[in-house]
Each structure stands twice: as structure tokens, then as C-alpha cells.
């Protein structure tokens, strides 16, 4: 069996040798390059635009402005299409805009023979504006006198749910209640490969778009919608991609390159964003204000949690309101025996547009929730770990929102394991009653998450398996490998179910919407959970085809046959090889009278959604006068069901933890509140952690068996980013007594808090 072991990932050699080809590694003769003209103000309308100087520059082929693009509003969120008219994404984008809504908005685009020529010409386009007032936050965007950023006003949507009982009864009856306001920042994905796409035409109708995307099939649809053309005329190809983290779960460049090639006779046109553009003009994580209450009895029973979230989506809706609603809903599995109220309001503002980012609203919601939980545990004088253990989900608890049973839950075991790993009890005693400038503290926080988007969205996955002439198998999936290792996990699953070795499964890592099975792509930590049944079904179908063909070859009954170690064997006597798979394949392909290509092609809809769980434990040191945090130890412990590939699973956890430490301590995309200018649109001023800013990362698993999953597995890609932030906040509180209720807990923020608390 290879599931549960760690074979070398399918793309490792391609990547360490530089042979893996990303979008920019493909060029075509005569390729043109495009560069945007971006607004230099955050809000206003273009009063004059002069492209004459740009047009006359060497190498310039064309300049298009907002006057030249289709008047078709389109939505960019990488969601599956919805048949429910009340559940469609907000269509608020044009390819180029006269009404600019953030600093960096797209008013024109230049196409030239080189990237440098395009950039230089873009700088030569003269744009004048009638400026409008700038709103950067909830207070300004929701004020009565606020200008309308979009036609229907500045509120995208608000909603509320109460689950598990009556909130007021629960709160009023509780022994203790706390409330607090918690803030999370705008952060950016900072995948190492910037957004890039190119397009060309095969004839007068068919457009080919090659792009760094997480969602090729959705991208095809959105390009079709934006250009008002049949979706089947758009072919989207996804080669290797240099990270996405949700930012490429949005359709950003593809409609533009498709438009440009249609306007330039089908010539190939590449559009590659600089890092500075990618930081501000793709998507970010929504900043949030979380007004929270928690109520508990003195025996440690959590009676109620109440989270009111205000989410700032910036200039365009993108994933807008679905982010808070997903974050709220996915948290209901964590403390299912309490009353939960969650409300959210999402508004526009004149800052860069927010969209999907790793864990999709949960890091925001859980920051508020787990800070509030810490505060109520401290108020009733209960140990932080004991309090959580008492209240977290048990197997077969009922999720109060969905009314569905939680069929696997290892969160209690995760907390117990984490407590031992970090030596919680011993350190708690050691760190008690500290004085002086440097103090140690312990923190814990939990999370729950989903495995996919069902029942909010459709969950559809496809897998095609082909028996090659040499007995190996080619696998095509519509799900996308974006670095997380999904190709490898699917190969392991197929190998085990088919009875062949891992090295005999070749995975086509490129998705091509003209060729690949349909799947909506990499997001929501869905792929191992929702693609697994498709893989399993396809593997079983192919196995059946092989065995039926062997019956035709040998006359032996199918039921008496099995496939073990790349051979067809007698089921009751696996040592007895009847034929190698290679022999079967060559016969099937080339026998003149019988056989044919043996394949399986499966499309599968998943109608369940398994909650995954986990927690973070941290031991850190606060240097109060230096306003700095040093993490001594940090552990994430996860219940992601059965682990398909332990080494890759660990890699997902480390990566999420690293990103979480960045959000907790360093990262924030800053805008000037007066004029909306982005202040730190580069990797020097936007502080993602370097090698020396991240501690050694500890990771552990509690392996439950999820009965709804094809291989017992649950989500793992996004969850590791959720709980480190609040755990770090709780540890700083433990060390200093100071509650820092906002991320990032950077030196300048710590200075203010320590100063106000009288520590400085």
C-alpha cells in the first residue's frame, strides 16, 4: 500500500532540476506583451486620457482604454456556477474602468513588442481625474455621506444565523460573560510566481489562454461571460503554477488577455504582473473587525458565542460576502454544544480588492472566537486547555447549523497531544508570577474547518484513467496541482485501488479544459476529499475492465481474479501470476480480434462535507522593552482524518504555520487613510517572514477515520493557517497580562499596547 506512506512526489524531480515549466517558460514566436495603465488615485473618474504619446513610441502595437472595452459587467470569483439566481456572484467588473475605485485600478492597457516597451508606453499615457472622497474602512464607507463606490451602494450583503438555541437565554443564564473587539489585517498571498497569462487564437472563434490559475474550468466560464462568447470557444491551459493560496482562485488576467488577442488578430499576447502590481491589483485577504461575546458557567461549560463580523472587501466584490459566511459556518463544528450567533456585514471601500485566501474567512472568525474563548476561560479561572477540551466537538455531536452529525472528531485528542508536546503543565508552573523585561508565555487555540464547499456549492470532480501499452496508467484529473501535492495523493490512491505500484501511475499535471475532465479546481481544501471518490471509482472501473478482459483472454472468471503488484493474479492465491498488466495491455491494444483501449472516465458529485479539526500550542518569549516576540516552540496538531502522504501533509502544515506566523507578527498591507494610496506594495516593505523569522515548526496528527471519505481523509491544505494567530495572542496575554486584540502583533503595535498597559 502506498496510501499512508511518503513516496517521492510526482513533480519533485521536475522542480529541482528546473525542468518544470510555468506559464512564463512558454514563449511563442511574435509574442506581444501588455502592461496596464493604473490609476494614481484611489477614487474618482477619469476626466481626460491622452494616449497619443504612448501610441507613437517604438514597439507599441496598440493602446486600449476604458472606452474600448465591452460594456459587460462580470464577476471574477472562482466559484462554481450556481443554478440558484439568489446565489450568483456579484458582477461589478469591467475590463477597464472610467470610475477608478482603488489606487492601482485599471484604466488602460498598452500592447507592445517587449515588456519594457509596454511599460514605458504605459508610463507615457496621460490621465487626469475628477477626484471623489476616499473611504478606506468601515467607518468611512458606511457613513451616511459616503460616496457610492458601486451603483448599489457600499454594502454588499449582510446576514445572520443563530444555531443551537436562544442566544439571550444562554447569555443571561451564564455565570460569566465577556466581550471584546478584535481586528485582523489586510494581508496578501505573496505566492512566489506573480499573476501571468497569455492568449492566442486558433482560428476566428477559438481562444487559447495559458495561465497560472487554480481553477481552469471556472476560468473558461468567466472568460466566456466577460467577453460574451460561447464558453466552449475558450480553452484554458494550466501548466505548473508557482503558488496560489486562493489568489489564483479568481479570474484576474485571463479575460483581458483573451480580449486583447481577439482585438489583435489572434496574435499571442502575454500579460505578466510585476510584484508591485500583484500586491495591490490581484486580491488580498479581507480585513475584519470582530465584535465578540462569550458566555460560560463557572464549571467551564461554554454557553454561547456571539461573533459579529465586519468585513472590508475593498474596491470590488470578488468573493465578497461568501468569505465571512463560510468562515462563520465552518466554525460551527468546533463548539457544537453551545449557542452560536454569527452575523456579518461586507462592504466596499477604496482599497485593493480582497478575495479568497487560504482558509477563506476562518482565520478572521477564529481569531475573534479563540481570543474571546481565552478571555472567558481566564475570567472563570479555568485552564485554557481544560476549558477547550470540555467544550469542543465529540464524535456524533450534531452540528447545530447543519443539523448533521460530526462523524469523526479528534480535537480532544489533538488538544491532549499538544499539551504534552509543549509540556504545558510543567511550563505553566514555571512561567507563573514572572517579572522583569523578558517574559515567557503559553498559548493555545483551536479551529474547525470544512472539506469542500458542499452544500453551499456543487462538488464535482473528474478522473480519467488509461491503461498504457506498457501496463502503466495515465491519470487525468480536473483538480489542479498547485504545489500542495494533489497529483501525488491521487496517484497513491489510484495505485492502491488498482493494485499497481505508485511509479506505474503517471499523472498529467497540466489541466487543459479541452482535454481534462471537469473539476472546479483547487480551493476550500476540497481536492483530496472530493476527488478521492472519483479516483477510487475510476480505479475500480478500470480494474473491472482489466479483469473482464483477462477473462476474455484466459476464460478465468472475473471474480477469481485480482490485481496485485502490477500483475493479474488469482484472487485466492496472490502469488499465482496469471498475466502481467503489461501483457494484458499489449494484448488489449494489438490483438486483431478482441480488446481495445482500456479506460475509465468518471465524474463524481460529493454530497457530504466532513469537518476537520486542530489546534496550535505556542511557547514564546516577550521582550517588553524591545517590543519583540521570540517563539521558542510552536506545534500544530491536526485531525485531518487518515493521512495520505505524511511528508506532504507535514509540508502543508508547516507552510500554513509559516504564513500564520507572518500574519500574526509581521504582515499588513497598509494604505494611507487620507488618500487610499498603498504604502507597501513590495516584498521589502510588506514583511513576509524570511528564513530567520520563522522558528522550528512542530507538527503532529491525530488520525481519525472519516466514514464519508473514500480513503478516510479530511481537509488539510488551508487549516494549518487558522489557529496560530490567536494562539500567539493568547501566549502574549499569558506572558504579559496584555491582551493584544489585533494582528499583526508587530513591534509598533506591541509598543502601543505595552505603553498603554504601563509596562513601558
Amino acid at each position, binding site marked *: 500500500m502506498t496510501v499512508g506512506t*511518503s513516496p*517521492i*512526489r510526482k*513533480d*519533485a*524531480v*521536475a*522542480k*529541482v*532540476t*528546473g*525542468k*518544470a*515549466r*510555468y506559464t*512564463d*517558460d512558454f514563449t511563442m514566436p511574435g509574442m506581444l506583451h501588455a502592461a496596464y495603465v493604473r490609476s494614481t488615485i484611489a477614487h474618482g473618474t477619469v476626466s481626460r486620457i491622452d494616449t497619443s504619446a504612448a501610441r507613437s513610441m517604438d514597439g507599441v502595437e496598440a493602446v486600449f482604454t476604458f472606452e474600448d472595452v465591452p460594456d459587460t459587467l462580470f464577476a471574477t470569483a472562482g466559484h462554481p456556477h450556481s443554478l440558484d439566481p439568489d446565489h450568483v456572484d456579484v458582477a461589478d467588473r469591467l475590463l477597464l474602468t472610467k470610475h477608478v475605485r482603488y489606487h492601482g485600478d485599471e484604466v488602460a492597457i498598452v500592447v507592445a513588442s517587449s515588456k*519594457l516597451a509596454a511599460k514605458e508606453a504605459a508610463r507615457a499615457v496621460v490621465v487626469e481625474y475628477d477626484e471623489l472622497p476616499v473611504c478606506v474602512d468601515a467607518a468611512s464607507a458606511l457613513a451616511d455621506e459616503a460616496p457610492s463606490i458601486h451603483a448599489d451602494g457600499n454594502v454588499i450583503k449582510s446576514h445572520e444565523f443563530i444555531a443551537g438555541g436562544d442566544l439571550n437565554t444562554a447569555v443571561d443564564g451564564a455565570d460569566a460573560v465577556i466581550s471584546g473587539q478584535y481586528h485582523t489585517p489586510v494581508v496578501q*498571498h*505573496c*505566492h*512566489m*510566481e*506573480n499573476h501571468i497569462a497569455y492568449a492566442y487564437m486558433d482560428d476566428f472563434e477559438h481562444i487559447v489562454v495559458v495561465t497560472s490559475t487554480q481553477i481552469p474550468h471556472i476560468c473558461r466560464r468567466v472568460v466566456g461571460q466577460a467577453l460574451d462568447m460561447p464558453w466552449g470557444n475558450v480553452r484554458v491551459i494550466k501548466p*505548473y*503554477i*508557482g*503558488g496560489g*493560496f486562493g489568489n489564483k482562485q479568481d479570474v484576474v488576467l485571463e479575460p483581458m488577455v483573451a480580449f486583447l488577442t481577439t482585438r489583435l488578430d489572434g496574435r499571442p499576447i502575454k500579460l505578466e504582473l*510585476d*510584484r508591485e502590481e500583484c500586491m495591490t491589483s490581484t486580491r488580498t485577504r479581507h480585513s475584519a473587525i470582530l465584535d465578540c461575546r462569550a458566555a460560560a458557567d463557572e464549571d467551564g461549560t461554554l454557553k454561547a458565542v456571539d461573533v459579529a463580523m465586519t468585513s472590508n472587501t475593498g474596491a470590488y466584490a470578488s468573493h465578497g460576502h461568501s468569505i465571512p459566511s463560510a468562515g462563520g459556518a465552518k466554525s460551527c463544528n468546533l463548539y457544537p454544544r453551545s449557542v452560536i450567533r454569527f452575523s456579518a456585514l461586507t462592504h466596499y471601500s477604496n482599497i485593493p480588492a480582497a478575495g479568497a485566501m487560504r482558509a477563506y474567512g476562518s482565520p478572521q472568525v477564529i481569531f475573534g472566537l479563540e481570543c474571546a474563548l481565552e478571555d472567558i476561560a481566564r475570567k472563570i479561572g479555568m485552564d485554557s486547555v481544560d476549558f477547550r477540551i470540555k467544550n469542543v466537538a465529540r464524535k456524533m455531536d450534531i452540528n447545530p447549523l447543519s443539523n448533521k452529525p460530526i462523524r469523526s472528531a479528534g480535537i480532544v485528542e489533538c488538544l491532549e497531544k499538544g499539551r504534552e508536546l509543549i509540556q504545558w503543565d510543567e511550563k505553566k508552573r514555571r512561567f507563573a508570577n514572572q517579572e522583569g523585561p523578558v517574559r515567557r508565555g503559553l498559548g493555545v487555540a483551536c479551529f474547525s474547518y470544512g472539506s469542500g464547499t458542499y452544500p453551499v456549492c456543487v462538488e464535482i470532480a473528474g478522473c480519467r484513467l488509461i491503461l498504457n501499452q506498457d501496463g502503466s496508467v495515465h491519470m487525468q484529473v480536473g483538480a489542479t496541482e*498547485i*504545489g*500542495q*501535492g494533489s497529483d501525488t495523493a491521487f496517484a497513491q490512491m489510484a495505485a492502491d485501488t488498482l493494485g499497481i505500484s505508485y511509479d506505474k501511475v503517471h499523472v498529467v499535471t497540466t489541466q487543459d479544459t479541452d482535454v481534462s475532465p471537469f473539476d472546479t479546481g483547487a480551493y476550500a481544501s476540497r481536492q483530496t476529499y472530493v476527488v478521492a471518490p472519483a479516483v477510487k471509482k475510476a480505479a475500480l472501473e478500470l480494474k473491472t475492465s482489466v479483469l473482464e478482459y483477462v477473462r476474455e483472454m484466459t476464460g478465468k472468471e472475473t471474480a477469481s481474479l485480482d490485481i496485485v503488484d502490477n500483475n493479474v493474479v488469482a484472487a485466492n492465491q496472490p502469488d499465482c501470476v496469471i498475466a502481467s498488466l503489461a501483457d494484458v495491455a499489449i494484448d488489449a491494444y494489438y490483438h486483431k480480434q478482441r480488446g481495445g483501449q482500456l479506460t475509465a472516465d468518471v465524474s463524481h458529485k460529493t454530497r457530504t462535507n466532513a469537518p476537520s479539526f486542530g489546534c496550535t500550542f505556542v511557547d514564546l518569549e516577550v521582550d517588553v522593552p524591545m517590543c519583540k516576540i521570540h517563539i521558542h516552540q510552536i506545534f500544530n496538531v491536526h485531525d485531518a482524518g487518515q493521512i495520505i502522504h505524511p*511528508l*506532504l501533509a*507535514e*509540508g502543508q502544515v*508547516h*507552510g*500554513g*504555520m*509559516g*504564513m500564520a*506566523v507572518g500574519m500574526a507578527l509581521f504582515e499588513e498591507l497598509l494604505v494611507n487613510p487620507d488618500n487610499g494610496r498603498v504604502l507597501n506594495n*513590495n*516584498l*521589502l516593505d510588506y514583511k*513576509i517572514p*524570511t*528564513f*530567520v523569522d*520563522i522558528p*522550528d*515548526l512542530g507538527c503532529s496528527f491525530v488520525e481519525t477515520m472519516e466514514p464519508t471519505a473514500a480513503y478516510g481523509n479530511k481537509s488539510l491544505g488551508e487549516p494549518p493557517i487558522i489557529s496560530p494567530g490567536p494562539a500567539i495572542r493568547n501566549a502574549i496575554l499569558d506572558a504579559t497580562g496584555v491582551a493584544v486584540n489585533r494582528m499583526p502583533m508587530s513591534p509598533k503595535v506591541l509598543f502601543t499596547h505595552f505603553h498603554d498597559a504601563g509596562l513601558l
Partner: protein
Amino acid sequence: MKRAITMTVNNRKLALDIDVRSSLLDILREQGLTSVKQGCGVGECGACTVLVDDIPVDSCIYLAAWADGKNVRTVEGECRHGKLSPVQQAYVEAGAVQCGFCTPGLVMTTTSFLERNKGKKLSREEIRVGHAGNLCRCTGYETIVRAVELAAKKQNEE
């Protein structure tokens, strides 16, 4: 503005007539060495790291003209006869590869780092400082540190 330069790239002598406005990254990619990735264009991310006379530089902020007469190494030249270099092998085994975009630059940084520190016992701190010019957003650096430790161990056993 053209300029004639010669350089050795992965043991291959190249005589080129370059545009002086080009970075070394531009020229190497034009030569098909697409392992050299641009992640920022300003020397902040290290994805474009190559070795010039065995010293790691950000090729995005290194004029191609400066490579005249120099020996340039990219990750394409590190495997020989279908066999990965010890550093590449360690990255594969340690699970240090995810999206892979930062990987070629990191492999070159590690290669140079270990060549300069042959025989030394390296602390995690020294490894981290020696790699601080390369950003990775996928791994939290943990498995990369392990890969460097693994490659160092193998190097010191030889």
C-alpha cells in the same frame, strides 16, 4: 546598445551579443535556462539566484554585461548524466519542494552554501542566515532547513 560578452554557463562557453539593458536573468532565460525565475525583479525574493564564479547573486539585479568572462551556474547544470546533485537529491527526499517556483534559486543558494562550508558542522541558525536571501511561501522553510541538513550530512560523510 549592444555589447559582446563571453561567459561559461553550466560548463558551456557562450559568446553573445547582448543588449546592455538586459539583466543576467533576461539573458539566461533567453538561452532556455528557464529555471531562473523572476519573483520580484528587485532582489528581495531570491527566486532568480544563480552562481557567478560560485557566488550566489540575484540575477534580476545583475547586469548581463557583468557576466563577461565569468562562470555562471544554474540549476540545469547541477544534475549530471541523469543523476541529481546531492543537494537536489536532498530537496527531493526531505520534501522541501512544493510549488517549486523558489526551488531552483534555493538549490543554488544551498549548493554554494555547502561548498563554502565543507566539513563544518552547521547549526540550524547558520543554515537559516545563509539562506535568508531566498523567500519561500509554501514550506515555512522547515523542510528546506532539513534538506540542507541532510545534504550537509551526506557531504560530510563523503
